[in-house]
């Protein structure tokens, strides 16, 4: 069996990088609390997954991502629809939305904790605030990008408003909506982990803070690997559903 050159590169590149990392820690005798060698991180990962101690944390983070993503997307789609359909309303609220959109959500995080407590609610609210805007912007763009002739076709055929929306406008907007959803999904992952940094005793974010403050460098590195893989996985789920929904492109 011959391997595809790209597949070989995908195996060789990380192997080389890990090799260099290992060589560096050995050759310069780097103390493990600064940069643990790869095998220490691998052992830690094995302990986390085989020992099962990571599952509650992973579940907690995934739960916040899912809740924040679903609620934030639903809100973004709904408001995006209203603003795309009612330009008068958009002109009225656009300046405030721009202010909220550009305000760094990390700065709002303590406020959310103040308002919604240290529990799950404030974590989900922070995640929702990060998912909401990209989805809203994508929805507005998508619904507005209908070619004028397409809109004339709907008038010629005398489509009802519902037919126009569900048969023409919404399907045409799907590509732009998906761009928003993809950004939103990545933001949801960041938001969930960030919210766990700030409060609580569960979640991947909490584990990172715990590892950092107790000088457990192998655990910290393992968590970096896990969160990076989680981000990629969440993004890929959206890319796959996009491919499936937009197979006509």
């Amino acid at each position: 069996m011959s391997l595809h050159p790209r597949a070989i590169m995908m195996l060789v590149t990380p192997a080389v990088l890990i090799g260099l990392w290992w060589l560096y820690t050995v050759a310069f005798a780097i103390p493990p609390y600064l940069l643990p060698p790869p095998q220490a991180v691998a052992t830690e990962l094995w302990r986390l997954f085989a020992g099962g101690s990571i599952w509650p944390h992973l579940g907690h983070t995934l739960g916040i991502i899912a809740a924040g993503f679903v609620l934030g997307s639903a809100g973004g789609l709904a408001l995006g629809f209203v603003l795309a359909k009612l330009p008068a309303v958009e002109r009225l609220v656009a300046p405030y939305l721009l202010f909220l959109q550009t305000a760094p959500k990390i700065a709002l995080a303590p406020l959310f904790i103040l308002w919604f407590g240290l529990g799950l609610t404030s974590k989900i609210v922070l995640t929702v605030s990060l998912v909401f805007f990209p989805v809203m912007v994508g929805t507005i763009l998508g619904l507005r990008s209908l070619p004028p002739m397409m809109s004339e076709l709907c008038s010629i055929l005398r489509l009802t408003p519902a037919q126009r929306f569900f048969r023409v406008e919404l399907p045409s907007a799907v590509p732009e909506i998906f761009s928003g959803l993809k950004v939103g999904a990545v933001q949801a992952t960041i938001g969930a982990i960030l919210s766990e940094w700030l409060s609580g005793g569960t979640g991947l974010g909490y584990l990172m803070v715990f590892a950092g403050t107790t000088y457990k460098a192998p655990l910290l590195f393992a968590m970096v690997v896990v969160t990076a893989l989680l981000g990629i996985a969440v993004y890929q789920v959206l890319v796959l559903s996009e491919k499936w929904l937009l197979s006509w492109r």
Partner: protein
Amino acid sequence: MLIEVQGVTKTFVSRGGEQVVALAETTLDVQQGEFLTLIGPSGCGKSTLLRMLAGLVEPTSGRIVWQGTAPARGSEVGFVFQEPVLLPWLSVLDNVRFPLDTFGVDRRAGDEAARQTLELVGLKDFARALPKELSGGMKQRAAIARALVYKPRLVLMDEPFSALDLLTRDRMNDELLAIRAEVGATIVFVTHSVEEAAYLSDRVAVMSARPGQIRTIHTIDLPAPRGEAVKDLPAFHAWLSQLRRDLR
């Protein structure tokens, strides 16, 4: 007679609040079963007039009177745009059946009508293809099929072949004549091309700009059925010169 355009005008208000006359007072009859072409430079209001016939644009003054009942449903008017405007997520068959679906025609009858119309435009073998898999000429044929599938009383075409290369355009002109002979539709056609106008039309309305108006209407007395041989006739070339003179 199918439609009487009675002293219709259209004035748009520009952003600066200025009034722009897109179409000065225009009177025109569209005869049942004829091929009527509107030709003229940009800004002569030919597209505006076509959109008024479609009911897309309301006249500022004047009336458009249909013989019998005015079109109640979209099914009375077919429109072919400059671009195909196909729904890219639907197959060619689904695109052609789309108007019938929205009118509430049942699926089986819709499929049957769509297949017949696809056969008429020579796309029978591409029913399952997606629009992106078709060439420009084939896409426009699918768009024509979509405009014909519900047997409208009037078919409006807004420079439908202007985006195609010359060879494809010539072939599409011949096919349009064949399709028309088969279905006997009344067609109002907008073009920039004097060749297209003379070759296809029973009558040509020559329009001029600023303000947009009909300058003269010619009855093209070339023999029917039209075909390549017509293009060699001295009379055809006389019409081309005549139309060019009118447009100057």
